[in-house]
């Protein structure tokens, strides 16, 4: 099949989706994050420690794949690191949490970081600034911000954190409050640089915590962060990778405008929540890394047909980040299949 020529730019397409209009075709947004470093032939460490490198890598990936959004992200510890957690930077892998801040400092000693100066937060802002100048009129620039629950767990010893949700819930709420303020401050700077914050909360998924725990400790802070962003009338994607089937019914209560899902049956998501919230997802990231282009092509066609049943709109995406070493031809197969099939306009 011959790929149809786009009528709209990525930005125009996204703009129509979020005001409940059908664009020419679905937005196609595989989560090309750190994988962009391989497209640009740079080390992963270079990607997440230099704003200019992150920008160059993302622009190289955009040029190679012609997908519909820039996705600025390295890993979920970025705010926790700026608040005092210690990370190691392997040369060719993502940062690794070594010393959580709350194992060495008390909560009262944890600062609300200044995104212009604290650790790697300026890397994001510099990357946004550079990319905005380059392609900001045509492509949405999504900047992934860890939600308070995920940041809270990265500030703590993860096991201890989970135990405290049962034994000392108020202490968790205290951590959530400061994590929320840090996330709001970071989002404020992202907005003023030209980026659209996307809220990510992988450690709140049902792969990690129970629905009750999610409802008690994660959802209220996701919602407050999203409500803050709604003051600016921004359209917010909430991305929860991992298992989300048990909490699907709770997701509209976050007030998110779009929900990005991972390990859950897309048909179930469409049936349960897509009349209230736009759906983003959810091709299996192991498959995009290890399957053949032909298999990916077939899978995407089936996934798109399912996703396009969403009355509020659908974005073709991977369930989580495209793995760093994914072959480029696999991502191209994903995008080509989506571009051939995901059309609303005849």
């Amino acid at each position: 099949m011959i790929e149809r020529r786009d009528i709209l730019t990525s930005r125009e397409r996204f703009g129509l989706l979020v005001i409940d209009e059908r664009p020419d075709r679905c937005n196609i947004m595989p989560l090309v994050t750190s994988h962009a470093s391989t497209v640009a032939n740079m080390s992963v460490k270079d990607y997440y420690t230099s704003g200019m490198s992150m920008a160059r890598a993302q622009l190289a990936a955009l040029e190679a794949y012609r997908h519909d959004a820039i996705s600025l992200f390295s890993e979920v510890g970025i705010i926790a690191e700026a608040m005092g957690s210690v990370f190691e930077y392997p040369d060719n892998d993502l940062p690794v949490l070594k010393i959580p801040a709350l194992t060495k400092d008390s909560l009262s000693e944890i600062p609300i970081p200044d995104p212009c100066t604290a650790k790697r937060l300026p890397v994001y802002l510099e990357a946004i600034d550079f990319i905005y100048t380059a392609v900001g009129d045509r492509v949405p620039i999504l900047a992934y911000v860890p939600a308070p629950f995920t940041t809270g767990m990265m500030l703590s010893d993860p096991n201890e954190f989970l135990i405290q949700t049962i034994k000392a819930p108020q202490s968790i709420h205290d951590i959530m409050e400061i994590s929320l303020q840090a996330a709001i401050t970071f989002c404020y700077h992202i907005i003023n640089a030209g980026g659209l914050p996307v809220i990510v909360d992988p450690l709140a998924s049902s792969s990690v915590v129970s629905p009750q725990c999610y409802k008690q400790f994660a959802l209220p802070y996701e919602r407050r962060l999203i409500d803050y962003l709604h003051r600016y009338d921004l359209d917010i994607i909430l991305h929860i990778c991992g298992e989300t089937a048990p909490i699907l019914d709770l997701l509209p209560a976050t007030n998110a405008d779009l929900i990005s899902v991972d390990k859950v049956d897309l048909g179930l998501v469409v049936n349960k929540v897509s009349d209230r919230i736009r759906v983003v997802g959810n091709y299996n990231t192991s498959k995009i890394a290890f399957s053949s282009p032909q298999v990916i092509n077939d899978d995407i066609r089936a996934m798109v047909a399912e996703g396009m049943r969403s009355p509020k709109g659908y974005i073709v995406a991977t369930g989580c980040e495209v793995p760093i070493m994914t072959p480029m031809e696999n991502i191209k197969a994903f995008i080509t299949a989506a571009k051939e099939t995901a059309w609303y306009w005849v």
Partner: protein
Amino acid sequence: MLEDIAPKKISLLEWSERFEKLTDDDIGRFTYYHNEEWGRYLQPPATFMVYGARQLKRLQFDNSLAALRMWGFVFNESERLFRARQCGKKIIATMGDLGTVPVIVMAFPGCTPFYPECIWWTPFFNESNVLLDTASELGAPEAACFSRAALGAFFKRAYFPVPDRIFASTGATCDDFTSTIQSIEHLGFDVTWFEVPFRRTYPDRIYDDAQFEAKFLKRTEDYLIKEYRRIWDIMAGLTGKENTDILIESIRKTNRLRALAREIMDETHNAETAPFPALELMTIEFGNLYGYADIDEWLSILENVRDTVQLRIERGTGIQPKNAVPIAWINPSADPFLLNFVEDLNLRVVDTEYVIRQALVQIDETAEPFRALARSFLHASLIGSTRQRIASILRAIDQGKIKGVLITNVLGGSHCAMETKLMERMIDSVPVLSLDVPPPPGITEQIKTRIEAFAEALHD
């Protein structure tokens, strides 16, 4: 709701800082179409910058709540038009006449007029050639006016919904825009054409024959009335409404809008120190054409602006020093940055000829409504001689109120190509600078240098 502070032009970042101090109730107070779910519009420039309006990063804005409301409302217009369609309103494109057909359209309940050509600001606010390049691919080349962006927007269907009806003027109107509309028609859109006549009055008394003049004006009026009645009939057919009383109501509302805009402009221009910036004033003048697709809310915003302006005048405060040099501006700037830049050079815009003077004229509420509309339109900037276009500016120069004139040409704009040299010759007692506004990314260093030299000459 915002602290009472001295007037000042502030950056996008400063507006975000101020916006942080607003409560959720403050933000929720203002809505269009009275819809609380999606009709909120009190957002800072940063919101629109995130969605691609790149120029906002370097523009300066008035720091009043009134200005914040105004910008939020104006930048929301595209979404507002789609929402209008979603809630069952009919969307009517009125093209080329600049001011009168919307009065007819607004008379019909549930009908929203808009000017697709006003999309010409978008390439500049976005610092983007997307729409202009699309228009070029469709046959409207770089040598045509920036209003060709409308062709790109019609093709893309992402900036406004497909209109239920399109009315477009031909005749004594902008030639290149008429050709743009023809290209839109060739895309398959159904266009209803109407003709606007040339205004054959003779203020220079070349023909000293008052009887001839009166007779000719009557014929011109009669012709326009016939054209407006044809538009009325089409709208009546579309909506099933016939009663012309609703037209009189629409005229009254339009007059309120025009009177408010005139009041704001006159008070600002005549104040000792400029109480409101030129960029915001130009936005208000263009809003006069149709109320940015929700005239009731726009009226409320203008009342807010008027109160702000009056308070500042009362206090003797403003956004420029008192010694700013008064100038007149001819043709809309196309690039909004220019208005910021000129004010930064301590020049003050006190008179304008943005080709939309007809939208500032009161419509006679006592005359037969179609005749009243025709008479008001006969003040139109582009349907008469060059001398008529700049008559009020020439008078202001004679009275010593204007020390210089800036003419911003749009490459391909027929009135620019035909009239600028004539105007330069006619304005012989104060310095005149005419320049061609380049397409995005916009103003070059060379153009800045020319404006700086112009400002220096005026300050000397």
